[in-house]
């Protein structure tokens, strides 16, 4: 399956601006920044034609919005972290792809539209991701919103439509999901040197999610999304959707090489930089595996792991 995929690899990155604006304020932010830079290099070394971003900090209401303005230029300031500085940006958007994605989404029954307006407020998460991953606009990008009311089926279809559009234009892409893991921040201003994950519960869940990512278990994470939403997400939107979109666009299975490049606190939230690369190999051998298994491979070594 990996040979045919138009998606070379997927990245999961955090939305908050510290890695871009204040990477030296603590060693965690610096680690995240270094991980972003490693990913930037890997994108440069790949033969991707396009970076496609799905951002949880771009909420849409009227269907799904896709950024299509060829030269997207502005200076962005975050609503909360305005004191860390401004984020001037100049992104080259793949307008043709944006239109293709929009029509692929419509063909799959979604209400979608492109936005192509000077001064459109590109969200903090997308600005951070594209500024760090593609600073010189070496390849064009595209950004898709995350509808506030969309649930699983709508998000899965939106992910599949991204794949459709890449296939129909014969483009290779790196897809980037911008999202925190646990997203509860401290509700007061903190000294960055004292940043930590908001609670041990959030931290434990983040660690569990990262284990799944490291094992390449994208579909399993997709299946766990509702549980993740209930456990460690502040209920701003109806569901935790990043794994749905990522799995639907890259392939709904667990056949990935996973690499967690960094995991750090961002004002209390869980910020991780993760890479998932399609592979061929382990299939149907994971605990609570949600793959569509055809042949039983035997004991999955669940019970003899853990505490001895």
């Amino acid at each position, binding site marked *: 399956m990996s040979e045919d995929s138009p998606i070379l690899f997927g990245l999961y990155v955090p939305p908050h601006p510290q890695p871009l604006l204040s990477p030296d304020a603590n060693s965690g932010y610096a680690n995240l920044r270094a991980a972003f830079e490693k990913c930037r290099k890997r994108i440069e070394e790949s033969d991707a034609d396009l970076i496609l971003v799905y951002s949880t900090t771009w909420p849409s209401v009227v269907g799904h919005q896709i950024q299509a303005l060829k030269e997207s230029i502005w200076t962005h300031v975050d609503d909360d972290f305005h004191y860390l500085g401004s984020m001037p940006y100049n992104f080259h958007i793949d307008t043709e792809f944006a239109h293709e994605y929009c029509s692929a989404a419509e063909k799959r029954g979604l209400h979608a539209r492109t936005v192509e307006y000077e001064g459109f407020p590109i969200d903090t998460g997308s600005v951070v991701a594209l500024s760090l991953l593609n600073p010189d606009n070496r390849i064009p990008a595209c950004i898709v919103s995350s509808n506030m009311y969309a649930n699983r089926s709508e998000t899965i279809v939106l992910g599949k439509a991204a794949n459709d559009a890449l296939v129909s234009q014969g483009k290779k892409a790196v897809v980037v999901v911008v999202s925190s893991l646990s997203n509860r921040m401290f*509700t007061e201003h903190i000294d960055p040197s004292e940043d930590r994950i908001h609670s041990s519960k959030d931290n434990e869940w983040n660690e569990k999610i990262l284990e799944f990512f490291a094992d390449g278990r994208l579909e399993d994470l997709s299946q766990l999304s509702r549980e993740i939403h209930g456990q460690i997400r502040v209920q701003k939107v109806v569901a935790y959707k990043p794994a749905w979109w990522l799995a639907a666009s890259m392939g709904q299975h667990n056949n990935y090489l996973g690499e967690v490049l960094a995991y750090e606190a961002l004002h209390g939230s869980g910020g991780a930089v993760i890479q998932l690369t399609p592979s061929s190999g382990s299939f149907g051998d994971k605990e609570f595996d949600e793959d569509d298994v055809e042949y039983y491979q035997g004991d999955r070594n669940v019970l003899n792991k853990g505490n001895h």
Partner: protein
Amino acid sequence: MSKGEIVLGCLAPHPPHLVYAENPPQNEAFSEGGWETLRWGYAKLARKLKTIDYDAIVIFTPHWQTYIGTHFLGLPEFKSKSVDPVFPNLFRYNYDLKVDVELAEAMHEETAKAGIITKMMRNPDFRVDYGTITSCHLLNPSWDKPIVTISSNRNSHYYSNEVMIEQAKALGEACMRAIEKSGKKVVLVSSHSLSHRHFVTEAPLPEDMSREHIYNHSQYVWDMKIIDMFRQGQMQEVVDIMPEYTEQTIAETEAGGLIWMMAAMGVPSYPAEIYGYQSVIGTGNCIACWDPNTETRELVL
């Protein structure tokens, strides 16, 4: 210096559709009109505002959402273009506005004293949110008064509607103390819709009024109930019923604006002036004001 006071409190909904429908020179989009019931109501309230002596508008907006405390605009001028992230097809507005920084700082200080986490926003590149711009444009199209925008801290997301109400009350009371000390005459604006379920698709011509209606009857009935309480001057009852109302109608009151304004005004027990009610993309919108002056308070609708 005489004691400062709140001379009027306005409930001023901010669907960008209303500015779009007006076709002011500041907005790039062009419309054939629409939503006249609200626009005419706004025009009448704007005329009333012209007859009132005041120094500044203080506006609480749901579209500057902060999770780390309550923030205040803290630079004297902001000039830029506001593009609505949800309706960029309708709202691309070039604004040039003045801020009463002294008043903002006074409110910031008084609010911090009350134990609320606060922050002054002093980044010159910051874009003022479209809620502020829409409500202020419709209330005062000449923009001849300075404003102060207060961000909405999302307590209802992080905790509950009940917590949000307690914090919004404390914020309102602190703002009132700051206003009294400032010696200024201030108009308060709570910028939001009532019921807030909206359609997730848009008509090809957004101002096609044959397509406009409330999202569902339940929202309408709840909105009418609340508006009736406004008319009766039952604002304490409105505060009490707010968690239930907000939950039942996904109301934009979730940001805390109305509670903030009511608390600052001492929870009025006199009737509100009602200027109009209409749906915009399915949401329920009411323009109302609370006039503490018995001589100028009137029965409008």
